[in-house]
């Protein structure tokens, strides 16, 4: 799916979002100061950083005003979103099921979404991988798995 975007207008939007976030966190940082010396205040450093971010956001907005140019963004974002959704689902299943069954389902789904249709390959990857990881991490290295 290919579409044409106006890069510089998007930079104005990004700059504006960062500007709003900077202002928000400047306010939040000021709340951290409770009357002690500024030199040791937990608010000092976040205040400096968010103020600098404010300045750079304004710079980004100013650079993008009045200069529009088109460019192409490419790619299949739908596929990416499916993978992200699958990964979040995996996270939920990890807490409910054991590591191995939820990982088998995750890898099956992932390889299928990417276009693999040979079930024996999907099966090999989905079963061998979690078993190997369980053995190497869990048994050999003593690392706790989810």
């Amino acid at each position, binding site marked *: 799916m290919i579409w044409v975007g106006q890069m510089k207008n*998007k930079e104005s939007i*990004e700059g504006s979002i*960062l500007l709003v976030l900077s202002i928000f*966190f400047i306010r*939040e940082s000021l709340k*951290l100061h409770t009357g*002690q*010396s*500024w*030199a*040791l*205040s*937990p608010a*000092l*450093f*976040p205040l400096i*950083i*968010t103020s*600098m*971010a404010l300045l*750079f*956001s304004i*710079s*980004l907005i100013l*650079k993008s005003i009045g200069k529009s140019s088109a460019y192409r*963004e490419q*790619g*299949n*974002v739908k*596929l*990416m979103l499916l*993978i*992200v959704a699958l*990964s*979040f689902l*995996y*996270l939920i299943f*990890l*807490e409910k099921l054991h590591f191995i069954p939820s*990982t088998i389902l*995750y*890898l099956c789904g*992932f*390889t299928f*979404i*990417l*276009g*693999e249709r040979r079930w024996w*390959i999907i099966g090999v*990857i989905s079963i061998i*991988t*979690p078993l190997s*990881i369980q053995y190497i*991490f869990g048994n050999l*290295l*003593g*690392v*706790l*798995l*989810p």
Partner: protein
Amino acid sequence: MIRDILNIIDLNFILLVFAGSLTGLFVGAMPGLSVTMATALLVSVTFTWKTHNAMALIMGVYTVGVYSGAVTAILLNIPGAPSSVATTLDGYPMSKKGEGLLALKTAAYYSFLGTIVGLLVLGISAKQVAKLALAFTPMDYFLLALFGLTTVGSLTSKNFTKGMLSALVGVFISTIGMDPIMGVSRFTYGNINLQRGISIIPVLIGLFGFSEILYQITLNQGKSEALDVNRDKISNKEIFSHWWLGIQSSIIGVLIGALPGAGGPVASLIAYEQAKRTNKKPKVPFGEGAVEGIVASEAANNACIGGALIPMLTLAVPGDAVTAVILSAFYVHGLRPGPLLFSETPEMFMVILAGGFIGSIMILILGLTVAPLLSKVIGIKQRHLFPIVALLCIIGSYAASTNIFDVLLMLIFGILGFLMRRREYAVAPMVLGLVLGGIMDSNFRRAMSLLSSSDNVFGDLFLKPITMVLSALIVISISFNFVSFGRTKTDK
């Protein structure tokens, strides 16, 4: 000294270093598993061993573990540790061009060189370097970290404003959690998981690893064919031609490694920046697969090993997390690092040096034989490789602190990294900001606190030699950034 080292080395010692090296190769390459973790496990495993044997194993893990972070950095764009972030900048582009084997060999040779230089400095001038490290004040630490941040220019070839925003977001994220000085919670909003701050490992894995998977899937839809790993014949002459840059980077690495808390990430980035300044016309531009980028980064981060051992052995002050664990190993075995180490148990100094030297030879052996076998990994089709890599990203994020919240963070930063790449924001400055933010925050406030009670503020701020040098470096670095970005705009 050479005779003393040779007296310690026997077959048993070599085999133990080899066993540690194999462990280090695997652990260092896996994001989420760290050399610190492996060393800590070994301290408990080797509790009842003879000290020489325990140190041999630990030094093997340490030396090869630091190098092996470069393997996944080059092959998969997932740095094995923060100190390998700079290696991804040119290592991964080389991999994509079919020069993965050249990149891995370069990393192996110059990691070897960096380790040797670091250990030589340790052996010959440990006390002098320790004296210099002791002279650093909190303001100097802050300025050093700030200097590291100004190298953002090296990491953002296209847009300095976006690079700085990325770095500032990273620094801001480092402030989330418990304030190290006053102990109050900052920006946690009642979330207990955020109290301990945002861990670097899930951020690293998300921004580099998971986001790369999402990015490649979006571009290629999982259909791209396997890359040709070894397109060109490897010329050792080409690799060795950068020996002088390797030595310069090693010296930067050992000096920065000697500063407690500074470490590999700072050293490798400053060395990378230095390489960019001194190599005006590389064969391939930096950031697009320049061999010089890998030379600088790997020589510096491995030279940090020798550097970090200097304050540990001479002052009983650890130079980094791994040396903190090694320090505990010394105490467990009844030894006392510090000024008395050389008079009471001088042979332990030689054991560390011997373990390090053999470990550096293992970098060459394993780096030139085993690591190239790993380079076959990028020859696997994406629709088979990416699910496994994604799973390793999830396991790696979890393994660091066995907390599902870290996996959630990794996914969030993975999505953020994907969006940043599409909008041409560099991700490396964000990681750099996160690493340096903690150093900057606490040292800045300590410096301000000391200045507020000082009689001679101007003198304390500007007239100390180290402070003046660091301030000058920052001004030069910032000027260089503005000049080079101005030149890029003019060329366009």
